[in-house]
């Protein structure tokens, strides 16, 4: 039996994750139903189903403690659903505690740790739920009123299914034009099976006509009764009824392999491109054109393949955001503050790997925002603000960069207090502390904001770890803070790792790659326009002085003769712009990033290495870190300041 079960463990844990995600999403919705005689049936039903499924699969793999806990949660929810028990705040709290324990118990099993003890929560759940099994699960739903609505009769066939037209697709189409009231099988003419959907909405005449070819016959429902052969099915329940039949679960490691193989292909194609270019003069032009056309088609298709695989790896940022209301809710209770959470852009997609790595940093910043950023109700009222503080989370994507913002409307960072603490911790404090320097101070490894009231924020995960994580992922971080108005952290992350577009630049005899996402602008400048200033160099960029960094100087590369015209990358914007000067920018290429994560060979300013296809390794520069160098030495804040 054990061997039989072991082969299903991966599936099991993946399915557990899905249910836990649904539980997290729905539990908070349930909270708003507290006190009502019958909470929103769609919400209780979804939760009930998640616990029920968890119980079923946990039982199969003999994870008894998970089965038991899920069973008790299911029992309580059934009682709530049936109206036997009124939903209370205490009940929701117990459910939330139990959900957390459930998550913990599953994680323990996954990590091959001993089973978690669930007894005390099981007892708690038993106390709030009435004893005994209640009626079997069929949900009693009032018969739908059909007046003023539409019906759609769908007759499935093998031919339609081969074209992808099935009952799930019909449902999706109808859901797009209205709200489905009921869906039930009926026996059609001649004994065949059909489905009758009743929905409220106004389908376009053109759609109704086009659907006819797909076996869907839509008509307005006059006063008429539903065929009585089969009881009507509970109303459509939105995303929860999404069939899992059309999805495939894939181990992330397999996608990594795929990405690596594509990376090898990209390098191989670049090599081919170079070889093709070399033989141009030896081949008749008509032949050469054919080769050329094929290699460029190959390049295009390879890019599409790469994008396709990348898209498979993308998941909505909402996976992180969903956790936030839980964290905020607990902290608000512990600190006695009133907090609203405003989330937007949760459908923005980002690489699965990045989502996993960013979860803790985002939660950490949110915890900080609630426990340090937001004031107490009294303080807010005294300051003339709304008693309820707001934590805003937003995500958006532009090109290959995903931006995540976490803001609060609290008191802002107390600069003097940070400086005092930094001094106590023995950190160097610059004469003028702007927002970039502030971020640098609070995310220094030696800086701890821990005093008695801060315990909740810490959890062994400081701003220093946040910064390191963001940098490891090739991202950057900004801070904006205003006294009395609030604090905003902005993370900018690459959409995905591994393969990226880069600009190639020459310095002396060396070639370097600079990921395009970090570069705001490429400029050409006169060597003579560079002015010396206080031991550094500046140029006028967009009517403001911007510091100049010569890569030859930073990297210690001898430059044979001074050039008159130079190329440069502009990194950062507004007052934070830094100009990185190279000899020449020689091209643009898709590169495969091999990160230098080995701490022994890791250098700030070098993001990794790549192979351009000619067999030579080329270093990838971390333009943001190099720009940081210009503004205040190594290890300073990655991104300089908020756009002016």
């Amino acid at each position, binding site marked *: *039996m054990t061997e*039989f079960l072991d*082969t*299903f463990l991966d*599936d*099991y844990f993946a*399915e557990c994750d899905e249910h836990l995600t649904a539980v997290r999403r729905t539990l908070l919705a349930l909270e708003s139903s507290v006190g009502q005689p019958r909470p929103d049936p769609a919400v209780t039903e979804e939760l009930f*189903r998640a616990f*029920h*499924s968890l*119980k*079923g*699969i946990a*039982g*199969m793999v*003999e994870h008894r403690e998970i089965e038991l806990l899920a*069973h008790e949660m*299911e*029992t309580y929810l059934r009682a709530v659903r049936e109206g036997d028990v009124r939903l209370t705040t205490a009940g929701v709290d117990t459910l939330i505690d139990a959900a957390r324990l459930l998550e913990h118990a599953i994680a323990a099993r996954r990590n091959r740790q001993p089973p978690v003890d669930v007894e005390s929560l099981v007892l708690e759940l038993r106390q709030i739920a009435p004893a005994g*099994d*209640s*009626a*079997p*699960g*069929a*949900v009693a739903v009032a018969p739908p009123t059909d007046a003023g609505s539409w019906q759609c009769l769908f007759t*499935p*066939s*093998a031919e339609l*299914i081969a074209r992808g037209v*099935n*009952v*799930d697709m019909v*449902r999706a189409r109808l859901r797009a034009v209205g709200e489905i009231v009921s*869906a*039930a*099988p009926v*026996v059609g003419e001649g*004994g*065949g*099976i059909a*489905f009758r959907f009743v929905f409220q909405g106004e389908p376009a005449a053109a759609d109704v006509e086009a659907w006819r070819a797909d076996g869907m016959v839509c008509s307005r429902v006059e006063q008429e009764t539903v065929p009585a*052969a*089969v*009881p009507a*099915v*509970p109303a*459509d*329940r939105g995303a*929860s*009824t999404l*069939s*899992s*039949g059309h999805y495939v*679960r894939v181990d992330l490691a397999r996608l990594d392999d795929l990405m690596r193989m594509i990376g090898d292909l990209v390098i191989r194609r670049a090599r081919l491109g170079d070889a093709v270019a070399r033989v141009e003069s030896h081949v008749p032009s008509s032949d050469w054109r054919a080769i050329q056309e094929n290699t460029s088609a190959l390049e295009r298709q390879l890019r599409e393949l790469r994008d396709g695989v990348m898209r498979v790896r993308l998941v909505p940022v909402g996976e992180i955001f969903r956790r936030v209301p839980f964290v905020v809710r607990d902290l608000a209770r512990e600190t006695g503050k009133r907090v609203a959470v405003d989330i937007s852009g949760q459908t923005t997609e980002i690489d699965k790997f990045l989502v996993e790595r960013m979860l803790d940093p985002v939660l950490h910043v949110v915890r900080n925002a609630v426990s340090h950023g937001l004031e107490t109700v009294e303080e807010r009222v005294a300051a003339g603000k709304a008693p309820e503080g707001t934590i805003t989370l937003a995500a958006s994507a532009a090109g290959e960069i995903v931006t995540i913002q976490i803001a609060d409307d609290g008191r802002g960072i107390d600069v003097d207090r940070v400086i005092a603490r930094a001094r106590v911790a023995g950190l160097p404090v610059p004469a003028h502390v702007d927002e970039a320097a502030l971020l640098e101070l609070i995310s220094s490894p030696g800086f701890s904001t821990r005093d008695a009231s801060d315990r909740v924020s810490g959890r062994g995960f400081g701003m220093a770890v946040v910064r390191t994580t963001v940098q490891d992922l090739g991202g950057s971080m900004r801070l904006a803070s205003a006294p009395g108005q609030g604090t905003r952290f902005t993370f900018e992350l690459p959409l995905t790792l591994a393969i990226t577009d880069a600009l190639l630049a020459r310095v002396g005899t060396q070639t370097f790659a600079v990921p395009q996402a970090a570069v705001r602008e490429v400029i050409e400048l006169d060597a003579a326009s560079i002015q010396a200033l206080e031991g550094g160099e500046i140029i006028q960029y967009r009517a403001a002085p911007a510091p100049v960094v010569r890569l030859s100087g930073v990297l210690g590369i001898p430059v044979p003769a001074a050039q008159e015209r130079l190329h440069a990358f502009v990194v950062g914007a507004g007052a934070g712009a830094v100009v990185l000067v190279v000899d020449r920018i020689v091209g643009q290429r898709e590169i495969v990033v091999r990160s230098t994560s080995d701490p022994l060979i890791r250098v700030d300013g070098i993001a990794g290495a790549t192979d351009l296809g000619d067999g030579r390794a080329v270093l990838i520069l971390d333009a943001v870190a190099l720009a940081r160098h210009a503004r205040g030495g190594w290890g300073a804040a990655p991104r300089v300041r908020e756009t002016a």
Partner: protein
Amino acid sequence: MNQILIVDDSPTIRRMVKASLAALSGGCEFVEAASGLEAIERLAIGPVELMVLDLNMPDMHGLEVLGFVRSHSKYRQVPVIILTTRGDEASRVAALEAGATAYMTKPFAPGSLATKARELLEAAAP
């Protein structure tokens, strides 16, 4: 070749059922459905010799699926094994009254499910 329709919203359970029944003599072809409506759609388009049916599913309860199957002259004879999560004791009576051929609970032993399936397939064979 036996056509077996497996109806369960959990992909893990569907895989486990398939693995349990894969060794049935005479060979099996599996048709899967993740919801009640899907199950009935699969029935509509191809013959099925045995159905393994979960009760608690989205959009249509297993008992409703069973009720429909038993009310339809063409499918009335199809043996249906209800395979549901335990702890729902009253549902056993309801399922048998609604026409279930067999009632088994999850967690199930792969061997007993296979034995029951073989029994039902043999009994139904001409």
